[in-house]
Every structure is written in structure tokens, then in C-alpha cells.
């Protein structure tokens, strides 16, 4: 187990290095000049050239990469061209909103989708199963912004129950924090409910056809115990995998939801940085996302041990 962990952690180093090189090169090859953007509309070419020089963008690529790589190795993601702040501070400012939204979304999704998926598998072919599959197709198909606008119109504008937009950090009180996140989390969770419910249904359906289920039922165990303790536990590996991917995707940015609900999260930061050609911020954020993906995948792999004792590392 520890060897596996050490091996996987070591493997992250080349992964992050490759990501770093690719991101650096891709940004330099993309059209757009950060200096021209920073200078503003009325600036002239001479002023833009001076700003470019000040940012170090007139130096050879290899020199620029060397400086950045050296900074990263010392734990510094550099300073944003655009926001004139440390990239680590920028990520830190936006992390709470993104993590909060991701957590609430996953909680909504898991606690809704898993029971629904199990019930659909149990009542395979029945009206509930068909209804859930119908909902699932709808959940996949409906664009997030459409759902967001519908929810805002009904819940916020017509009923006046929840705010239209904004984010309150948890330090300003739990209820203000929660009430600003409920609608965005519901909006985002719909697609994850659809996904997790389908995967749960398929996995549990497969498990229900196994011999040990027949044995459990023959032993006279109550159906709820058969479903949860035997079928769901054995179907957990693919479900956990999907949840893990979901968490990584949510941390990686949910730009549309953040835009519609005005949540200052990492997704918006990424878009702002891309639009401003803010190289240090884009590089830092992409590296951070890569690290999150690697860690989440590792945690998912490790969790298999708890769900399936046959798996050993």
C-alpha cells in the first residue's frame, strides 16, 4: 500500500512537468499580447513595447521558462501580469467558493442519485425506473444556464426565497453562506445526479444478478439489507470512480454556473486570465488543476480497497 502510494506520488512529478511545459508553450503560441491588453485601448505601440519589456516578454522563451520553472520549484507560482498579485494568493482567494460549491453539489448529487439509482435497479423496468431514466436524459440534455435561469426566475424572482446571485464566505455566517449556494449547487448537481444515478442503477443491476444476492435472499435477509449491504457495497467501485471524476471536474471550474450566479470561483479566474492572456495565472491555475486531478484520482484508487477487499496494492 505505502509502496503504491509512493510510486503514484512520484509519478505525479513527470505528469506535472509535462503539463507545465505544454501549458507554457501553448500560451506563447496562442495569439494575443498581454502587454497590449494591459496598456488599454488608447495606448500606442511604444508604450506597449515598454510594458512588454517590463513583463520580461521580450526575453527568449527558454529564459522565460527557466525563470518560471525556478519559481515553481521554490513553491512560487509567480505574479499575475493582470491582477498584480501572487498567483497563489489569487487561487487562495477563489478556492473557498469553488470548493464550497463543489462540496455542496456533490453532497446533493450523491444523496439524491445513489438512492434513486438503487431503487431504479431494484424496480428494473417499472415506472420508477423509466421515470428516472427519462429524468437522466433530461438532466444530461438541459444546458446548465437554462436550468439556472429557470430556477432563478421561480425560486428567487417569483417566490423570493433565495438570492439571485453572489457568494458569501462561511466566515460571514453559515446561513448566508448556504443560501447563496443552494441554487447554484442544485443547478450543477442535476447533471451529476443524472450521471451517478445511471451508473448506480447499472452497477446495482449487475450486482443483483449475482449468486451472493440469491444466497442473501435465501438466508431470509430483509430486502433493504440485501440492497444496501450486499448489492450497493459490491457495486460501489464504479460509483466512486464517477463521483471522483465529478469532484475533479467541479474543482476544475464550472464557468457557466459561476458566471450566472456571480460566484468568484476558480472557473471565472481561469476565464479572466485567459481573456487577459495573463500567462502566470493561467499556468498556475492549470498546474493546480492538474495536481487536483492527480490527487483525486489517487484518493479514488485508494478508496477501492475499502469497498472491495479483493483489491490489494
Amino acid at each position, binding site marked *: 500500500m505505502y509502496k503504491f502510494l509512493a510510486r503514484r506520488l512520484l509519478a505525479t512529478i513527470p505528469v506535472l512537468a509535462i503539463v507545465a511545459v505544454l501549458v507554457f508553450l501553448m500560451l506563447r503560441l496562442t495569439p494575443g499580447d498581454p502587454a497590449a491588453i494591459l496598456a488599454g485601448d488608447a495606448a500606442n505601440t511604444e508604450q506597449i513595447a515598454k510594458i512588454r519589456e517590463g513583463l520580461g516578454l521580450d526575453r527568449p522563451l527558454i529564459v522565460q521558462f527557466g525563470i518560471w520553472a525556478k519559481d515553481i520549484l521554490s513553491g512560487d507560482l509567480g505574479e499575475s501580469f*493582470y491582477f*498584480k498579485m501572487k498567483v497563489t494568493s489569487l487561487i487562495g482567494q477563489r478556492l473557498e467558493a469553488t470548493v464550497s460549491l463543489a462540496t455542496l453539489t456533490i453532497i446533493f448529487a450523491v444523496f439524491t442519485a445513489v438512492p434513486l439509482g438503487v431503487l431504479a435497479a431494484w424496480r428494473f423496468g417499472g415506472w420508477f425506473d423509466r421515470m428516472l431514466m427519462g429524468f437522466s436524459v433530461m438532466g444530461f440534455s438541459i444546458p446548465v444556464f437554462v436550468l439556472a435561469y429557470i430556477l432563478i426566475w421561480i425560486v*428567487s424572482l417569483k417566490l423570493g426565497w433565495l438570492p439571485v446571485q453572489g457568494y458569501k464566505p462561511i466566515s460571514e455566517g453559515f446561513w448566508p453562506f448556504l443560501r447563496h449556494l443552494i441554487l447554484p449547487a442544485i443547478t450543477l448537481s442535476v447533471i451529476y445526479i443524472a450521471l451517478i444515478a445511471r451508473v448506480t442503477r447499472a452497477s446495482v443491476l449487475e450486482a443483483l444478478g449475482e449468486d451472493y444476492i440469491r444466497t442473501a435472499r435465501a438466508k431470509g435477509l430483509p430486502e433493504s439489507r440485501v440492497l444496501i449491504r450486499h448489492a450497493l457495497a459490491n457495486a460501489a467501485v464504479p460509483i466512486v470512480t464517477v463521483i471522483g471524476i465529478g469532484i475533479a471536474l467541479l474543482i476544475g471550474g464550472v464557468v457557466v454556473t459561476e458566471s450566472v450566479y456571480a460566484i468568484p470561483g476558480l472557473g471565472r479566474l481561469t476565464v479572466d486570465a485567459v481573456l487577459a492572456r495573463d500567462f502566470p495565472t493561467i499556468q498556475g491555475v492549470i498546474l493546480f488543476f492538474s495536481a487536483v486531478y492527480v490527487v483525486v484520482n489517487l484518493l479514488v484508487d485508494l478508496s477501492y480497497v475499502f469497498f472491495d477487499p479483493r483489491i490489494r496494492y
Partner: protein
Amino acid sequence: MKLHRIAAAFSLVALATLFTPAALAQDKVLRIVPHSNLAILDPIWTTAYMSRNHGYMIYDTLFGTDEKAQVKPQMVEEWSASPDKRLWTFKLRPGLEFHDGKPVTGEDVIASISRWGKRDAMGSALMTFVDRMDTPAPDTFRIFLREQCGFLLEALGKPSSNVLFIMPKRMADVDAFKQIEEHIGSGPYIFKRDEFKPGDKAVYLRNPKYVPRKEPPSGSTGGKNVYVDRVEWNLALRDAQAQVNALQKGEVDILEALAFDHYEATKKDSSIQIPNTAPAGLQYMARFNHLHKPFDNPKVRQAVLAAFSQQPFLQAQVGVKELYRSCPSMFTCGTPYGSPFGSDIQSKSNMKKAQELVKTSGYDGTPIVIMKPTDLASIQKLPDVAAQLLRQAGFKVDLQAMDWQTLVGRRAKKDAPDKGGWHMFLTAWQAHDIWNPIANAAMDTRGEQSGWFGWAKDDKLVELRNQFMRETDDGKKKKLADAIQARAFEVGTHVPLGEYVQPVAARKNISGFFVSNGNLYWNLKKN
């Protein structure tokens, strides 16, 4: 029983929320959704409008420009000029104080002028006249000119980027090509640096020590009275529909830039007003690249001027008739130099004439590379109209879609259009940026020296502009401005495409709006 307890707990939390200090203080907070994100906090380092607006919150200016384009004193109490108009003496108002408690002195002013003069186009032009500056007394400063200058006060009081904001000397001494790290001004608000989160919010507190002028506010002049404790700029709310939703629900008080698509519906909402804060508006403009074929040929540019009737651009981009107007002037209509003088090539032209001009111009069929920004709703339809009108006139067109930031980077390149350069882009300018021949960057025709993208070159226009800079008589300045405009139409520096007003939307309980550029936030009361 358990359910009852949970419900009771939630109710208590909800009640507690209602009576938190933040909720009680809500009526003293003005919540504004600006037109864009605020990232750069140095209004001299960049010409970005958001940085300028931030500057107006925390800094003060020596002079301002009122709604009738008249320059009026702001920090200056009195001033005088020598008979030969080469020595100007200015005395500051008493009681001017920076947010750190130190008094504003002539030394701060001189350092601020020097830094601004290195970055701003009008400031740079002014500095070519300035021999030296000094401070005979702490509250006085003098400007010694090499020769008579016709726009000294206009430059000191220019209302748009870059505005001459007065900073403490230690801040103004920072290299003009490096951003300042401190944000201390003497303006009506104090910037809360610790609460600033780019992409989220910017916070300003009322400056209790600010002494406003007695005159009513008008443009960037007059009394900057503050009637709220705190102003919050919501930088996260950038989706147009979400902005309107938030305004309707009362979660924000003012939308700085109401989308045209939402104008009619928002106007009908009884809880919302559309104050007339910036009637001078903005002007759309098509800019040629004068360095490359075919737009190195004035006859080809004339053909474009003839083809570009303003109505199709305005109808397509704005759509709401009451918000736009045709204006065959290179200076903003309704301001002192706005006039149709010399604009016949555009104002009395038609497509037939354009087609004839294309045929006789020697145009060789080079495809016209037009850069189209797909992500900037305020101008994204203009290139489509331009492409269609050019095709009708007989041009071949290569309409290239890109995001605005790519366009901004690419337009600075002087390469040939088939090697990553360009032929034409379209943009919009706020009225105050183009309302006289010095401020209007598109009329600087010093070729590659002029710097502004397109690099128009015309020596006669340069000479007329130089005369304008030296002229002090208003009547003669007006005649020179007419001559400059006529020459600019003749050589085709650029094409004005009409003007529009950017509507501001606000809750009905906000009062005290005044005519300015629409982005100034004093004198406002929240009832």
C-alpha cells in the same frame, strides 16, 4: 420531535441573519455593477476605463470638465496667466488632504503632472510646451511654458483616460512604466485595499475629511458630496441577464452598462429607472491600417467612407432607436467641436458612388482583413455590417473572428495583413476621448511615430493640429477644428460610424444622478 427541533434551529439562524449588523447597515451601502472587471489599480499606467473610474473614486483632479465641455477648477482655488501666457500660477484649495492625513502640496502636483505627462497622449503633447515647473509656496505651483499653449487647462482637466489624478509625491515618483503599489488619494472615497478581490469586489469608504466644492456636480466638476458610507463594486456579476435579475430583486442598486437587449423590458419595470447620466455617449469607429495595400491609398479609403453609411451599423449593433444617432463628425456631436463640416464624402454618399470610387482607385482585389471580436457584445456586430457593405462596394473581404484580446494584440502589429497583420478593426470611444483634435488619437497623423494603431500619415493634418495646439482664441480653435476634420475626411484617417448612449439602470430609490461619463459615483443618495 427531531424535525421540529431542526426547523426551530433553522428559523433562529434565519432570524439572526436578518438582524446582523450587515443587514442593518444595508441602506448605507451603494452596490454598483460596473461595466467590466477592475484589475489594474494605476489609472496612469493604463488607459482602461475601469482603472480611470477607480481613479475618480479615490483621487481628485486639479480641474474638471463639465457637461458642456467647459473646464472648471476642482482642487485649484484660483489661477492666473502672465500677459504672454507663458507663466501659469495655480493656488490649491485650502484643506486638501490625502487619505493618510498629509496635506496636498504643489510638490505632489508637479510629480503627478510629470508622471502623467509620460503616459497620456494629451499630457505628452503638453509636456512639449513645458519648460519647467516649481512650487513657490506649499499650496502653489507654477508652470513655465516655452511658448504659448492653447490647451493647458483642457489637458489638466481632461475627463477621460488618462485623467490627471493627483497622487502623493512618493507615489507619483514611481516610474511611469511601473504600476504604483499604494492607493492613497485625496478624493471623495478611500479605497479598502484589504477588501479588494479582483473578479469579486472592490470597496470604497466615504472619505470623512473630504471638503467638496460648493458648486453642483456636472461632468467631472463641482461638489463631490458623498451621502453613503460605502460603495461596493460587484465585479463578479457579469452575465447580462443575471445583472438585470439582481437589479430587479434589489440585490444591486446600479447597473453601469445595461445590455441593449434588456433595455425595453427593464424600462417597463416600475422599480427601476434609466437615468440620463451620459448623454454625450460613445462613438463607433472603423480604423484603417494605413501602412499596407490597399488602405495606403487615400482613394480606396474614400471609397470605404462613401460605403459606410452609419445607419446600418447603428441599427445592427444598438437596435434601440432612442439610444443611437447618426453623427457625421469625427468629434462627438453636441460638444464644442462636433460638426458635419467637411463630411460630405460620408454624409452625402451612397453605395453607387462607393462602387465608382473602388473602380477608379486602382484597388487590386486584395482581400480586406477585418478583425471581428466575437466576445465583445458591445461591438461584435459592427464587423459583419462592415464586411457586407465592403462587398457591396466591390471589395473582397476576409472577415476573421477572434476574441477581443487577440484583436488588441494583433492590431499592434505592423506586419502585412497576409503575414499576421490586419486591414481594419472597429471599436467604440467614449465621447470625452475624441471630442477635440488633440484627444482624438485617430487624428494623430504622424505616421508610425503617432503610435495609435493604423499609423495614419498626413503632414498637412499634423500642421493643422500643431496650430490648434498653439491657438488660444476659442473662435479660431473652432475654425481649426473644422479644418482638421475636413482634412481627416479628405485623407480618410478613419470612419465615424455614429453615436450611441450606453444606458445606465438603477433602482428607483437611488437619487442624485448628474450628467457625466456615467461612471462617477458621488452626489448619490439611497433612500
